[in-house]
């Protein structure tokens, strides 16, 4: 299938063929490859269709997000099914990812059986390890105690942690606890202090990857799509040559580059959410089941400006 637009009727970079192709986007993840300290991310669909070039790097990993196990309403009554699709796509990669990051909202209602289903489903992922950070849907009634017990053992404070892989430093942050009335996501004083110390020992040439649920940049504060104290966190990372911030929460891919920092949000494996300000609220978009994938894809296409490919092939840092 061609990646080029054949009938660009509305001059919007999308034709019907491309639209249909984008439907394959539901339930996909993002493959990240670290090449000489530069992190590149690719849509799994593209990787599987071999639409992207050299994927060989020092390290590759996959980000999946917002599985919302337990959600059963339009547009997706089968979120476990679409999570399985995502897993199948990861497992079909020619080079299995070193690990998988799940950037939160594993469940919809923080119920034990939802966490069970998520864990059971992810057992079939062909990877060495899965790292998690909680979304606000994972910490609903117990301030995250159940999530912490199951997915956050050995972490610091309310669940933040870091680890090193092939010379890159990975940092998992928690910004969905102790939220204040009228505010956005929050990291909090204790976590910020920890972060400052955690990166203090690193050389500025160390590639940094930060992952957290709510975007650490101001995507659309009116809908709560941002983190109140993210600026302070980012100030600790400014001296590094390569910083990648991976978030979920907004159920659509977006990217922003600011100096040496690249911000990227992932698709949900469950349901699409509207583009900022394009609806009355950020609630799940209700669409006919057969259009679910199409809408995820459209959202995606709109953020790849000036390119004729419909898949996300994110720019390098």
């Amino acid at each position, binding site marked *: 299938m061609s990646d080029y637009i054949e009938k660009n009727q509305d001059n919007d970079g999308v034709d019907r063929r491309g639209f249909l192709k984008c439907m394959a986007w539901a339930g996909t993840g993002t493959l990240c490859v670290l090449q000489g300290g530069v992190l590149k991310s690719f849509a799994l669909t593209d990787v599987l269709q071999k639409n992207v070039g050299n994927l060989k790097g020092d390290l590759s990993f996959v980000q999946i997000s917002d599985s919302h196990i337990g*959600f059963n309403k339009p547009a997706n009554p089968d979120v476990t099914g679409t999570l399985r699709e995502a897993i199948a796509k990861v497992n079909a990669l020619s080079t299995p990812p070193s690990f998988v990051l799940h950037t939160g909202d594993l469940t919809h*209602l923080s119920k034990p059986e939802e966490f069970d289903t998520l864990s059971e489903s992810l057992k079939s992922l062909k990877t060495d390890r899965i790292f998690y950070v909680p979304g*606000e849907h994972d910490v*609903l009634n117990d301030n995250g105690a159940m999530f912490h017990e199951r997915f956050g053992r050995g972490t610091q404070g309310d669940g933040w942690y870091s680890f090193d892989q092939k010379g890159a430093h990975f940092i998992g942050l928690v910004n969905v606890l102790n939220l204040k*009335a009228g*505010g956005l996501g929050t990291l909090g004083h204790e976590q910020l202090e920890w972060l400052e110390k955690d990166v203090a020992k690193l050389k500025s040439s160390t590639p940094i990857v930060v992952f957290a649920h709510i975007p650490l940049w101001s995507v659309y504060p*009116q809908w709560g799509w941002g983190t109140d104290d993210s600026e302070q966190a980012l100030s600790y990372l400014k001296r590094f040559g390569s910083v990648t911030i991976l978030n979920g929460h907004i159920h659509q891919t977006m990217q922003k580059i600011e100096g040496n920092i690249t911000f990227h949000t992932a698709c949900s494996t469950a349901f699409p959410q509207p583009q900022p300000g394009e609806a009355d609220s950020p609630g*799940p978009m209700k669409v006919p089941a057969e259009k679910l994938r199409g809408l995820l894809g459209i959202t995606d296409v709109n953020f790849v400006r000036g390119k004729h490919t419909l898949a996300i092939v994110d720019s390098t840092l």
Partner: protein
Amino acid sequence: MQRTKTQQNRTARILGTAILGAVAVLSLSLASGALRPRSVIAAQEKPGTTTVTIDNFSFAPMQLEIKAGAEVTWINKDDVPHTVVSDDHKLFKSRALDTDEKFSFTFKDPGTYEYFCSVHPKMVGKIIVK
């Protein structure tokens, strides 16, 4: 909501009893010379039970004025869970309300009570108790 015939009969009986009671109260009141039909109405329905609807990531009405002793019930009409939490995190705090789930709280003392959804803290509301 459709009611069954049995329920209707039962309601009729209860109403009947209430009316009888009302008549009795009325007689007593008349006897004591102090007619207070308002207390009869109060016994039949609960004034000051007010509903706040959670829809489209907002509380409606966002600001509500009630009398002391009245109960407020929140109902979530959204497809995602929300909570109802007083700003001090102490006075009232619901569990996560899934679609169509409710939470009620009785405001005993006059004052202004601000609250929010702890899942989506941009959602805020206010209850003014007179």
